[in-house]
């Protein structure tokens, strides 16, 4: 795992302007790839991260500077660099949404998967990176299913829709009414549409704006005079106008409830100042939520997500252990391979100093190989049975395998 490194530039250190500029595609990185190297790049609106294996740090920074046009010094100043286990842990944390602005947000995993597909398509990701990313997907999935990190919404619009589903169940069958055509009304309308609401009306004092929003949401615009009729027919009402006085008063709502024969209605008032008289909430089967009550619910959900993050970190720790074992076994295999390379080099070196016939040379080579294989049998068996980092390191140091590898490269 020590071979993997990460450079992360995100919303915590860099401004939006820099983040917009600091974006990399796998195709741009191809000219910088070396033999046996792997690169994976992730770009989202809040972060750009580059993970690499078997490439020098200086080459990576040089490459990023070349692609993005940002100076090397500035890149290093605004970003964080993680190595080995820390780099993989960071990727797991990002994939689980623990490092996002909104803890536990699910979009990041989709973005990581898209970036992986792009890396595979442009052949910048290979065996090791593939293994790391597949483990990342598994970890993120476990966190989403085994913890409640993404269970409860943390935006006011989503919360409003969630409340409506608790009352009406499948909101596809419920009629929704949006009063107002501002940004908040638009966001809430989009959330309703995402959850399958098809029967949606929009009312606004300026009818043209109601028409525009209705067209955007696939709803029906209605004139402001139809407010009473629409309230009578609707089950979910989202109110967000710029009016300074309440547009739905208690007497109006009493008449509405009488007309709809006390059928339940949920009223979401996300306007400031409020559009709905607070007394309306006391009427029978009127479920009224204003921005304060929604905020308090959302804050509780944020706290709940923070608590769930602890559980998520335990899962990350476990999955890191599993991946670490895989990398260690991979390192053990590499060390065993290096030991046999050392054996071959030793045989070649010993025979090159001897002045003997070809027949005798073959015999000597066979007996030398047999002796050395017997000698290596015990350390190889030991490494296979105990492939820990400590043992691998000890074997590499005793037999000076790294030095031997360097000599081999020089000879080649």
């Amino acid at each position, binding site marked *: 795992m020590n071979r993997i490194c990460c450079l992360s530039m995100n919303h915590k250190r860099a401004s939006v302007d820099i983040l917009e500029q600091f974006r990399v595609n796998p195709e741009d990185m191809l000219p910088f790839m070396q033999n046996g190297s792997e690169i994976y790049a992730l770009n989202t609106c809040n972060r750009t991260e580059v993970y690499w294996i078997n490439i020098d740090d200086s080459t990576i920074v040089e490459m990023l500077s070349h692609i993005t046009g940002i100076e090397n010094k500035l890149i290093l100043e605004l970003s964080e660099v993680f190595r080995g286990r820390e780099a993989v842990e960071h990727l797991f944390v990002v994939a689980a949404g623990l490092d996002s602005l909104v803890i536990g947000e699910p979009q990041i995993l989709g973005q990581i998967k898209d970036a992986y597909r792009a890396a595979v398509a442009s052949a910048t990701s290979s065996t090791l990176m593939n293994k790391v990313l597949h483990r990342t997907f598994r970890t993120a999935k476990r966190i989403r299913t085994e913890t409640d990190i993404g269970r409860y919404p943390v935006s006011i619009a989503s919360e409003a829709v969630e*409340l409506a589903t608790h009352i009406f*169940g499948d909101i596809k069958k419920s009629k929704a009414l949006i009063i107002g055509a501002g940004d908040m009304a638009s966001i809430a309308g989009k959330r309703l549409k995402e959850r399958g609401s098809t029967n949606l009306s929009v009312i606004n004092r300026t009818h043209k704006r109601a028409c525009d929003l209705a067209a955007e949401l696939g709803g029906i615009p209605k004139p402001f005079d139809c407010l009473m009729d629409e309230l009578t027919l609707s089950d979910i009402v989202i109110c967000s106008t710029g009016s300074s006085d309440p547009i739905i008063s208690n007497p109006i709502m009493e008449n509405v409830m009488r007309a709809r024969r006390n059928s339940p209605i949920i009223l979401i008032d996300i306007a400031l100042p409020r559009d709905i008289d607070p007394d309306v909430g006391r009427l029978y089967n009127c479920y009224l939520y204003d921005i304060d009550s929604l905020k308090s619910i959302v804050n509780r959900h944020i706290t709940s997500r923070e608590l769930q993050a602890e559980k998520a970190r335990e899962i990350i720790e476990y999955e890191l252990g599993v991946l670490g074992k895989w990398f260690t076994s991979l390192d053990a295999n590499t060390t065993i391979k290096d030991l046999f390379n050392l054996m071959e080099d030793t045989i070649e070196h010993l025979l090159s100093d001897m002045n003997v016939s070809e027949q005798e040379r073959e015999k000597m080579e066979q007996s030398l190989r047999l002796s050395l294989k017997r000698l290596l049998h015990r350390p190889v068996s030991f490494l296979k049975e105990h492939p820990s980092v400590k043992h691998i390191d000890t074997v590499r140091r005793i037999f000076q395998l790294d030095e031997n590898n360097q000599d081999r490269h020089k000879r080649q």
Partner: protein
Amino acid sequence: MTLPWIVLITYILTSIVFITYLMTRKSFLVSLSRLLYVCCTVLHLLVIVLAWHKIHHLPLTSPPQAMNMIIFLASLVFMPLVWRRSTIVLGAFFLPVATCILAFLLPSQSLLLSSAIGSYRYLYPLHTLSVVIGEALFVVAFVTSLVYLIHERIIMRGSLHTPISGLPALMLLDKILYASLSLGFIAITVGMIFGGLWATALEIQIGSIAPKVTAGGVMWAVFALSLHQRFAIGWKGSRTAIITLIGFCLMLVLFFGIRWAYPHAHGIGLL
């Protein structure tokens, strides 16, 4: 170990699994809880069939037998609800109640006691069976009302971040409540008519069954009022749920209180 004990242990185990599912929402518990629920119902049916076989008539001639039948029929009504993912948690509210009642009934021998039914035997099972079906549906209505009020409270307080908050939607609960109330009301009404015919046939004096008839009439009126208000002024949701709870308490008073205060309220020493 006898069959009633096995049934009771299965009910206890199923209640634990359902409550665990309600609190944890682990997916693997869904299949397990359904399987256990079917086991409970089948074993319970076996107990009733064996009692029937032993006493040679439908085991509906004493309060324990009637209560046992009510729980069994309510289990049957809950079966399709438990099979739906959106309403499976209702089992976590029904089963503990059912288990507590069965804990008093099943280990005793009261299910095997036979009582004299008298003449006009066909009117008696029609009367008791209709009433017991109606009461089983009121048990369903009671559990649904309880869940409705709990869920409404959760929604009002905005405590949507607890595992228990994933209860069925209010409108769905209201539909179940309405269906069980309406059908229960019809069954009780039919049962009361058959009861009247049976009492007439046996020439039982009205004075001797007055407490039972009066209490039954009051309970019938409460449910009639609930349904009327729903049709007339749209009393959906919490008001219906509260009336159902009151009606159910009244039913319990009828079942136990009248029997305790007037041991011969039926005039012939039955129910």
